[in-house]
């Protein structure tokens, strides 16, 4: 599956300021592995020692938080967008 991964400033600089990175993978986890091959520093910082997404980072497939799907085992379809966004407060 060809999917795109995107994030915002200031994290985008870790992805050479690319607005969207195309990778392939059947699941979010596989997409992260593909991203790691090109941007190891980014993925290592996003995940904790156990390989889980850090608690201060939210990951979405299209518009849905992966914690409401199957986390990193969430299956991907061609053209899906993975968004990586640091959690922000509000109210």
């Amino acid at each position, binding site marked *: 599956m060809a999917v795109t991964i995107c994030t*915002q*400033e*200031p*994290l*985008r*600089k*870790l992805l050479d300021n690319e607005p969207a990175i195309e990778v392939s993978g059947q699941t979010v986890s596989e997409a992260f592995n593909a991203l790691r091959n090109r941007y190891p520093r980014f993925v290592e*910082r*996003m995940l904790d020692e156990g390989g889980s997404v*850090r*608690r*201060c*980072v*939210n990951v*979405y497939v299209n*518009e849905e*938080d992966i*914690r*409401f799907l199957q986390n990193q085992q969430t299956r991907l379809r061609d053209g899906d967008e993975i*968004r990586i*966004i*640091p*959690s*922000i*407060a*509000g*109210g």
Partner: protein
Amino acid sequence: MDKQTGFMKALKCRECGREYPLAATHVCEFDFGPLEVAYDYDRIKASMTRSAIQSRSKNMWRYRELLPVAGEPTVGCEVGFTPLIKADRLAKRLGIRELWIKNDAVNYPTLSFKDRVVSVALSRAKELGFTTVACASTGNLANSVAANAASAGLKAYVFIPSDLELGKVLNSLVYGANVVGIKGHYDEVNRLCAEIAGKYNWAFVNVNMRPYYAEGSKSMGFEIIEQLGWKIPQHTIVPMASGSLLTKIHKSYQEMTKLGLVSDAEYSVHGAQPAGCSPISVAQKAGLDFFKPVKPNTIAKSLAIGTPADGFYALKVMKETGGAADDVTDDEIRDGIKLLAECEGIFTETAGGVTVGVAKKLIASGKIPANDSAVLCITGNGLKTLDALVGHVGHTREIRPSLREFEALIEAETKSPTAA
């Protein structure tokens, strides 16, 4: 005081402690953790004495050394110093020896505690050269950004879930702000705003300005201490949406202790959530230090954040201070609103009903002992969430302008008092 930084030292990652310049940024580039303002407490201690504070105007800026602006504040200079009310009638109803209400339902200018965070965020945004400000909001923040931006001559964009209470929508539009309704819940609005913030060079108060913005909440805690006669309350009950306010109340107590402005004392900070959006209280009750995100479904829309960014830190504060959390149903929220109104003459919004309802549960269960003293943080005004009460607070009885009809009405009510 340094003209560029005031009493601030740096932005510091709450996860790994790495430091960053005092710019409009909120994320650590090393572990993606949230940034927080670090202060020069030695210089603050020399400047911030009780007598210095007491000589200043009665607003939140009397604690300005501990608020993150470099120079004098320029937006929201009259915000804060809301009443702390001794609530004897409510104390009796809830079964506790002493109870106080910190009443931010009458905060200036938009009747919620959000004026505190917004005055800090917009003052700092002006220092950093921004001319457009923005926010993702469940309503109160939108009102406050719209009003304070108008008075400061800043352009404002506010993003809200499109199903918000009419009162909160009109309360943003009237100031001339650009109000964008998003067809989704707050967590979706927040995610979109994180993306927008990355594209436009705006001061997003709860995104790139968040490290400054969040610090404004501490002023509620500073005021509680001063208004109690320089004492930390034994128990403070705080409504939780993202969990940020609870962590900042705790921080305000710690800072005042560290600066010697108040004696070291044991205290507990408790958290309140609506049952229809209770990721933090559910985790606290289960003894977990992490939460499971939820899709909100509650009348307490100002607390309807299903993925609370400060949830982890709020859980940590409650654990460290021996605090507890609980949650209440929509009916219990309405009962809480009515109880506060009938006992103390204070009309709070749904979030305040949550706080009162949870206080009742924590006192009844003994988690807050009946012989202790507690402060309830009431953060918003009931006039903004009238929709939640329609059909639940009785109805008016109509008569013609005739004394005979009035007497008949009174007579009927005397015979069957339940009809009143």
